[in-house]
């Protein structure tokens, strides 16, 4: 079940010239949300821009007693809608529809390794919080262009995750792509049963899926297709999967955004 909330913006915290975190007051929506689900945000009042924009639920906000009071999103400016979200002010109200989509599935592996690139970090806070409750062993492989692109790493540390950071310019962590330390770690893991979770640029996710398959790890990806409705109504968000004899399109808003990586026909994936 999804609900639509004309949600007040509680805070808008700029992390950089491109990234910000917006907190919405939306207790009912927050109560329903599961890790990895997303919301559709209407970024303007009028008809232009017309369609909502999909965002992972970044954090479930809680009051002093632990009750859900809202959700936040981690926003990266890439176009008109994300620009509008970047420039919102506390007190503004935007329509937030959710929670939508399939959450990260619950896994019973020995270790849970999250692999995030850039704004692909968004769906992992809720996952890490849930895993932390079961004292599961977690690692976060987190890559960005430079140190200033790596946000919230310490939050994951607090939740008990081991951090493996990489930057393309070497300004923090290992220099290079996040898949390099991932591959080494997979090779070194011995008999430890590891589940991989990944979100980020498509080439990164594809590389993680390939590594996961090569190392026989269950691998989940959270895809980011262009979405018109987020509810299964428009058939815009399809990805090609290979479950049946012939490849076919499924709607990533209701069958996803989280998919078992082995289903995805990567060559057919846009973005």
């Amino acid at each position, binding site marked *: *079940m*999804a*609900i*639509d909330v004309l949600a007040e913006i509680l805070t808008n915290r700029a992390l950089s010239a491109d990234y910000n975190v917006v907190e919405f007051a939306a207790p009912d929506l927050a109560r329903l949300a599961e890790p990895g689900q997303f919301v559709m945000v*209407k970024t303007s009042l*009028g*008809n*232009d*821009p*017309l*369609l*909502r924009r999909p965002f992972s639920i970044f954090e479930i906000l809680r009051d002093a007693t632990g009750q859900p009071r809202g959700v936040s999103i981690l926003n990266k400016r890439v176009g008109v809608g994300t620009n509008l979200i970047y420039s919102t002010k506390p007190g503004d109200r935007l*329509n937030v*529809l959710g929670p939508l989509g399939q959450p990260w599935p619950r896994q019973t592996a020995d270790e849970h390794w999250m692999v995030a690139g850039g704004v692909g970090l968004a769906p992992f806070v809720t996952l890490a919080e849930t895993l932390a409750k079961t004292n599961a062993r977690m690692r976060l492989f987190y890559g960005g262009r430079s140190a200033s692109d790596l946000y919230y790493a310490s939050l994951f540390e607090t939740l008990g995750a081991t951090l493996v950071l990489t930057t393309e310019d070497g300004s923090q962590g290992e220099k290079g792509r996040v898949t390099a330390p991932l591959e080494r770690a997979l090779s070194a893991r011995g008999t430890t049963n590891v589940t991989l979770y990944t979100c980020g640029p498509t080439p990164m996710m594809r590389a993680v899926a390939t590594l996961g398959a090569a190392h026989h790890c269950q691998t989940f990806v959270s895809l980011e*297709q*262009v979405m*018109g*409705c987020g*509810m*299964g*109504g*428009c*058939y*815009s*968000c*399809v*990805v090609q999967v290979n479950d049946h004899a012939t490849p*076919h*399109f499924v709607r990533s808003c*209701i069958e996803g955004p989280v998919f078992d990586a082995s289903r995805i026909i990567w060559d*057919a994936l*846009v973005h």
Partner: protein
Amino acid sequence: MARDLSVQIGSLSLKNPIIAASGCFGYGLEYAGSLDIGALGGVASKGLFLNAREGHAPPRIVETPSGMLNAIGLQGIGVHRYISEKLPELRRLGVTNIVNVCGTTIDEYCEVSRALTDAEGVHAIELNISCPNIKEGGIQFGCIQESTYAVVSAVRKATTLPLIPKLTPNVTDVASFARQCEDAGADGVSLVNTFLAMAIDIETRRPKLTNGMGGLSGPAIRPIAVRMVYECAQAVKIPIIGMGGITCAEDVIEFIIAGAAAVQVGTANFVDPFVWNKLIDGLTSYMERHDIARITDLTNTMTKGK
């Protein structure tokens, strides 16, 4: 006083004039978890061919000023799986089902229509002769008057269900097509389908949609759609289902005044899947304010000139 929102289109009875537009509401069941889809005037299904279709490769949509282009390519499960997998649940939920029928030949239109006529729970056929997004069928029937007449009269013989051809706006004189439908025995017409349109990525110099062209829908097209509904209402006696860019009750009322007996809402459902109650409530309060007892009393009541 209770307001009478019911509408009759041939033998099709709608409890209210607000219908979910074809291709914009899945098969309806996608929304059943979040709202009472049986409370809608009707649900127009996604376009159905005889067989399943995969549709076009994404990107399938692109946003435009106050509108969107789509080239879904009529991905769908085919009429038989619709009947076996979707209809039972739709029936259980009390949905008024208006099935959008596609075909690449007149025979296919007839065969799909016959299958639906034999099924339980189909309330009307909306004959899609206007999809701009597939080469092999649809719109070529909708752009030539003789072809429109031919396909509508053939399907008329194949079904006893209320028959509502859906017209394309991509023609010089839409009213003449409505007349062909009326002459061929249609119970009503619905319009408009989307406007053939295009957006180009200036960095790659390729169309933004994989399919090249797509159909424009949403508020952007509303003033053209209202004009077309008005023109048809002057030309035919059969009821008209109007659509194109409706987002609020005021828009619904505008279409009804222009000549529509009922309306469909497509793109606005993407923006607000809970729009339905707002439309029905807004319509009711307008009727109260203007002391209109039956919504049918509002249809085609525009006064010309000053």
